[in-house]
C-alpha cells in the first residue's frame, strides 16, 4: 500500500467528501515535487519553492521552535500544509490542531508524498474554505510561502478566526451570483486599452452591470499638450494638468454611477489620492497591473492603497510587494476575448493583403528588431508601430508602421501561416531567458485558432502543454528550425492550433479570469461587498411572474427567454432603437428614468 493509498483510506473514513475531491484532482504541471539538496522532497509552484531547497526538515523545526508557546488546551490553526515539515512537531504539543490548506493541488501532492495519518485521524486537515466549524478563538500560525501564494484565502481565514461575532459562510461567500455594478477605467492609449474593453464585455457576460469610462478620446489632447512646448518640463506639467482634470471626471462619474467596484487597467489615469477618494465613497478599487513590474515602477504608488492589486508576475514581484508593505495582492494572468479573437473566413483579397508565411503584429522593441533581422529570408510581414522604416527591416514593415486595430489583427492572425510571438524586453538583447508572464497575444492567437511560435516563458506550462498545445523557442537558431519545420507540415500546425484554441476557450477567457478576480477581491476584503437587490433576472423568470394580461408579457415574448434583463438594459436597448415607441417601451423608459432620478437624489 503506497503512502497515498494509506492517506486516502483514512481520509475516506474521516472526511469522505474531501477524499472524493482529492482523488479526482488533476495537478497542473507547474506544481512539481523536486528533491532538496539533502534528498528530501519539496514542493515547487512555478518557480517558487514552498520549502528550503537545502534542508527542509531543519527549516521546519526552526520555524516551529520560533513560535510562542501555546497555553494548555489552546486550539492551534496553521495556514499552509506544504509537505508537513513545519507543522510535524505540533502533533505532539498542540491539541486540537488544524492545518488549513487553500489549494486542492497542494493537498493532493502532500497526500502522495507524506504520511498524513496522524493529522487525518484527528480530522485536522481542512482544504479550501472548509474551516467554518473550527473553534474560535484559536492561535493562527502562518506558513509564509503559502501566504504569498494565497493572500486572499489567508485573510478570509484570519477574519473568521479573529471575529467570533462574524456570521457563517453565507455572507462571506456572497460574490458569485449577485450582480455587481462595475466601473471599468480605461487608460488613454496603449496595450491595456483594448483589455479594458474586453473586461467590460466579460463582466457584463458574467451577469454584472459594467460600464467603461473611456479615456481614449483624451489621447489626442494629451498628445497635443506634448507638442505645445519644446521644454519637456512644460509639456509634462500640462499633461499632468489634463490627468488631474480626468481624475475629477472619474470622481464625477463614480458619484453618479455609484459602482460597487472600480476596475482599473494598467496605465489608467488614477493616482493614490483619487483611489482614496473613491474608497471614501465606499467603492472597492481593484487594479489589474498587466505590466512588467521591473519596467514599470509606478506600482509602488498604487499597490499599497487599492483594495486589490492584481498582477501577472509572481516571485520576485511578491517579495517586492511585501517589502513595500502591500498586503492585498494576488495573481491574475492575462486571457482573451474569444468573441473578438476567433477563426475567420477571409476573402481571397483579404488573404493576399493580410497573409504571409510568417507574420508579427506588435511594437518594434529593441529585442524584436534584433531577432527579426535574422528572419528576412522568409516571406515575412511585420505589422505595428514603433519600427524603423529605414532599417534593414523596412521592406517588411506593413502600412508604414501604423498601429493595427484589433479587427485587423484578427485578420492577420487568421491569414498568416505562422504567427511569431516574441515577448518584448527593453533590457535584453534578443530573447529574454528569464521571461515569466505571458502577453495577451499568446491567448489571442490561440483563440483565433492561429498557429504561433512563442519564446519560452516561465509561466507557459501552467497555461498550455508545450509541444502539444503550443510550440516554443529559446534561440534564433531554434526559431528558424521551427519555422522551416512547421511551414513544411501544415497539418501539424493545424492540429496544435486547434488544441490551443480548445484550451483557451476552456480555461483562459476574460470571463474565467474576471470571475476569479471577483473571488480574489472578496477574499482580500472579506464580507464587505455592499448588499443590493438583484437587478438581473432572465426574461423567462420575469415572464413567469407576470400576469397573463400584462402588455409587458406580450412585449417580452419576442425576446430570448434565457437572456438576462435589467430595467436599465432593456431601457438602453429601447433608447438605441428607432421608430415610434410602443406602450410597453414607453413605460419601461419611464420606469428607468424614474429609477435614475432616485439614484441621483432628484426625486
Amino acid at each position, binding site marked *: 500500500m503506497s503512502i497515498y493509498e494509506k492517506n486516502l483510506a483514512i481520509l475516506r473514513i474521516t472526511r469522505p467528501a474531501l477524499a472524493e475531491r482529492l482523488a479526482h484532482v488533476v495537478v497542473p504541471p507547474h506544481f512539481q515535487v523536486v528533491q532538496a539538496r539533502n534528498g528530501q522532497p519539496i514542493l515547487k509552484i512555478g518557480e517558487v519553492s514552498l520549502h528550503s531547497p537545502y534542508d527542509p526538515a531543519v527549516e521546519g523545526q526552526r520555524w516551529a521552535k520560533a513560535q510562542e508557546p501555546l497555553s494548555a488546551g489552546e486550539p492551534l490553526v496553521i495556514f499552509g500544509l506544504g509537505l508537513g515539515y513545519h507543522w510535524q512537531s505540533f502533533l505532539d504539543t498542540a491539541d486540537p490542531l488544524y492545518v488549513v490548506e487553500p489549494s486542492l493541488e497542494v493537498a493532493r501532492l502532500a497526500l502522495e508524498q507524506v504520511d498524513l495519518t496522524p493529522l487525518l485521524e484527528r480530522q485536522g486537515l481542512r482544504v479550501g474554505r472548509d474551516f467554518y466549524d473550527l473553534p474560535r478563538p484559536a492561535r493562527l500560525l502562518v506558513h509564509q510561502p503559502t501566504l504569498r501564494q494565497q493572500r486572499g484565502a489567508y485573510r478570509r481565514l484570519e477574519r473568521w478566526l479573529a471575529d467570533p461575532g462574524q456570521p457563517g459562510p453565507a455572507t462571506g461567500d456572497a460574490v458569485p451570483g449577485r450582480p455587481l455594478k462595475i466601473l471599468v477605467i480605461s487608460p488613454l492609449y496603449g496595450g491595456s486599452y483594448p483589455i479594458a474593453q474586453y473586461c467590460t464585455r466579460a463582466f457584463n457576460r458574467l451577469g454584472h452591470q459594467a460600464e467603461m469610462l473611456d479615456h481614449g478620446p483624451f489621447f489626442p489632447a494629451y498628445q497635443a499638450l506634448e507638442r505645445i512646448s519644446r521644454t519637456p518640463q512644460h509639456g509634462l506639467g500640462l499633461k499632468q494638468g489634463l490627468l488631474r482634470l480626468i481624475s475629477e471626471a472619474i470622481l464625477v462619474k463614480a458619484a453618479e454611477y455609484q459602482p460597487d467596484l472600480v476596475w482599473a487597467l494598467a496605465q489608467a489615469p488614477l493616482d493614490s489620492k483619487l483611489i482614496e477618494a473613491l474608497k471614501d465613497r465606499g467603492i472597492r478599487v481593484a487594479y489589474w497591473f498587466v505590466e512588467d513590474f521591473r519596467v514599470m515602477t509606478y506600482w509602488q504608488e498604487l499597490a499599497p492603497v487599492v483594495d486589490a492589486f492584481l498582477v501577472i508576475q509572481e516571485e520576485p514581484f511578491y517579495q517586492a510587494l511585501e517589502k513595500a508593505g502591500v498586503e492585498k495582492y494576488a495573481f491574475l494572468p492575462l486571457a482573451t476575448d474569444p468573441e473578438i479573437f476567433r477563426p475567420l473566413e477571409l476573402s481571397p483579397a483579404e488573404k493576399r493583403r493580410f497573409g504571409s508565411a510568417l507574420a508579427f503584429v506588435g511594437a518594434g522593441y529593441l529585442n524584436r528588431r534584433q531577432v527579426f533581422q535574422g528572419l528576412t529570408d522568409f516571406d515575412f510581414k511585420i505589422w505595428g508601430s514603433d519600427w524603423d522604416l529605414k532599417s534593414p527591416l523596412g521592406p517588411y514593415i506593413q502600412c508604414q508602421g501604423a498601429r493595427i486595430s484589433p479587427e485587423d489583427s484578427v485578420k492577420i492572425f487568421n491569414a498568416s501561416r505562422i504567427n511569431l510571438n516574441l515577448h518584448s524586453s527593453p533590457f535584453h538583447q534578443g530573447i529574454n531567458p528569464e521571461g515569466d508572464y505571458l502577453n495577451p497575444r499568446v491567448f489571442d492567437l490561440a483563440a483565433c485558432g492561429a498557429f504561433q511560435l512563442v519564446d519560452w516563458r516561465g509561466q507557459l506550462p501552467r497555461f498550455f502543454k508545450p509541444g502539444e498545445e503550443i510550440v516554443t523557442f529559446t534561440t534564433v537558431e531554434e526559431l528558424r528550425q521551427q519555422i522551416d519545420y512547421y511551414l513544411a507540415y501544415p497539418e501539424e500546425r493545424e492540429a496544435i492550433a486547434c488544441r490551443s484554441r480548445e484550451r483557451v476557450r476552456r480555461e483562459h477567457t476574460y470571463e474565467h479570469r474576471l470571475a476569479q478576480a471577483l473571488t480574489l477581491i472578496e477574499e482580500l476584503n472579506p464580507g464587505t461587498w455592499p448588499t443590493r437587490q438583484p437587478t438581473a433576472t432572465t426574461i423567462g423568470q420575469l415572464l413567469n411572474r407576470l400576469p397573463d394580461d400584462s402588455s409587458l408579457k406580450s412585449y417580452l415574448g419576442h425576446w430570448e427567454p434565457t437572456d438576462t434583463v435589467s*430595467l436599465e438594459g432593456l431601457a438602453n436597448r429601447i433608447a438605441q432603437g*428607432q421608430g*415610434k415607441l410602443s406602450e410597453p417601451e414607453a413605460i419601461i423608459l*419611464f420606469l428607468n428614468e*424614474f429609477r435614475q*432620478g432616485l439614484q441621483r437624489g432628484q426625486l
Partner: protein
Amino acid sequence: MRALRILVMQLARLGDLVQTIPLLSRLRAIYPTARVNILTDRIGEPLLTGHPAVDEVIPIDLARLSHHLNQGSWMAYQQITGLVKSLQQQRYDLVLNINFSSLTRLLAYLLQVPQVLGYQPTADGRGVIRSPWLTYIYALVHARRFNRINLVDVFRHLAPASSFPELHQSLFGREDQPPWSTSEPRLIALQLGSRHSRRRWPVAFYASLSQRLIQEYDLRLLLLGIKDECPLGEALLRALPIAYRERVSNLQGRTSLAELRDWLSQVQLLVTGDTGTMHLAAYLGVPVLALFMGPALCFETGPYGNGHYVLQAEPDCHPCAEAKDSCDHAGCRQMIRPEMAAAVIDHLLAGNPLSLDSAAWPGVQLYRSEIDALGVNYRPQLARPWTFVNLVGQAYRQAGQKLLGIDGPGLPPNSWGYLPSGSRREMLFRKLETFQQVLRQGNSQTAGEPELREAMLPLAAFQQQLRRQAQWPSSLLPNSNADWDQYGAQVKDSLCSSLQGWLAQAKGMGK
C-alpha cells in the same frame, strides 16, 4: 357637446406645485365649463383638493413606485400601466406638460391626446418639442443675470392668453393692505432651512433678528420647516436668552401639509429663504419677507403677488450656479444684515417709513413685488443708478411679453433707478450702443466685452434652439407648422427697439 377635458401634469416638488396654481386658475378663467384635472405626487394632494380651479387631483404615488423599483419588482410596471390606462379612459382633449422631464414627456406621449401644450412629445415619443415661449425661457436661463421672468408666469402663460380676470388676482391680491391688523396676537413665522445651504441665511442672523423682534414688539415667533431642519431651530433657540425662548414655538417636522397651511394663515408675516413654504405663504396671501442669496434670484422664483418684499444679496457673481460645489467667497450669505431685515419688518409692522439711503445697504437691494401685464416683477426700493444688466434684463422681459402677444407697459425705467452721471453715463451709453450693433449683426463673437457676450447668449440660444427644431423631420412634429424663424427675428427687433427707446429717453434726460 361634452365638456372639454384638460389634464395638467406637475410631478416636481411641492413648491413647484404651488407655483402651478395660477396656471390652473387661468385655465378655469378661459374654460369655465371645462373639466380641469391635475396629475401630481400624492403628497401634494391635500393642497389642491377642493380648490375652485381644479375638478380632480389625480395622485401618482411616487413613494410606492420607488419602493417597487427598489425591490426590482414588476409591480412598478403594473402601477404605471394602471395609471396610464385610467388616464387614457378620461380621453383628455388637452394636456399641459409643464415639467422639462422625460417622465411627463413619456406620459404625455402615452395618452395620445389631440393637443399637448408646453413640452410636447415628438410623434415617436423619443424627443420633446418646446413651444416658442418655453424655448425663450430655456434661452434666458443661459444668462440668468438677465432673466426677469418668474417661474409662476412661465407656467401661467402655457395656457392661451386670456382677457378674463384670473382667480389668482384675488388670491394673490392684498394690494397695499396693511398686513398688520390691530387685532392680537401678533405672530411671525420663520422658515430657517432651505434645500441648498448656499441659499440659507445664517442661523445666527435669524437669532439676532428674533431677539430684536421679541424685544421691540410684543409678538410670538413660529419656526416652520421639516424634520431635517430641526438642528437649525435648536441652534436658534440656544442662541436666544432663556427668557425669550418661551416666545418661540418650534413646529419643525411637526406639521402636515394641511397643518402648515393652517398655521401660515394665522401669521402676519413669514420671513424665509427661497422655499416651498414661501410659495405657499404667498399663495395664501400672507405677506412675505424673503431673503435671497447665492443661486436664488427673486426675478425667477420670488414670492408671487403684490406687495411682498425681497432682500436680494447682489454681489458681482450673483446669481451663482445651483450645481456649483463650493464657493470661495460665500460672502453673499453675510451681506443681508439682521438690521436690514429688522428695518423692513419695522416698516411693515409699525408703518415706520423705510430709511432708503442706499449707501447704508451695501451690496443688497430691497425689492417689492408688483403685478403687471406679464405677471410679477420686482421694483427696487433703494435708488441705485441704472446698470447695463438691469436695462437688458428688462428688455428681454419686454421681448418675452411681445412673444406672447401681450400688450401693456412694464415697469417704467425710472422705477429701476436713476441715470448715472459723468463718465459712468458715457460708459453706459457706449455699452448700450455697442450692444445694439451686436444685436443687429447677430453674432455674439463680435461682442468684445464678456458682459456683452453674456447679454447676447439668450438670443443666440433662442435662435439656435428654434433652428434645431425647425430642422426636425415634419413626421416627428405633430400638428406643428410653426414658422420658427419669425420668433427669433421678433425677439431681436423687440430688444433693439426697447433699448433704442430707453437710450433716446435717457439722452433726452441727460441734456
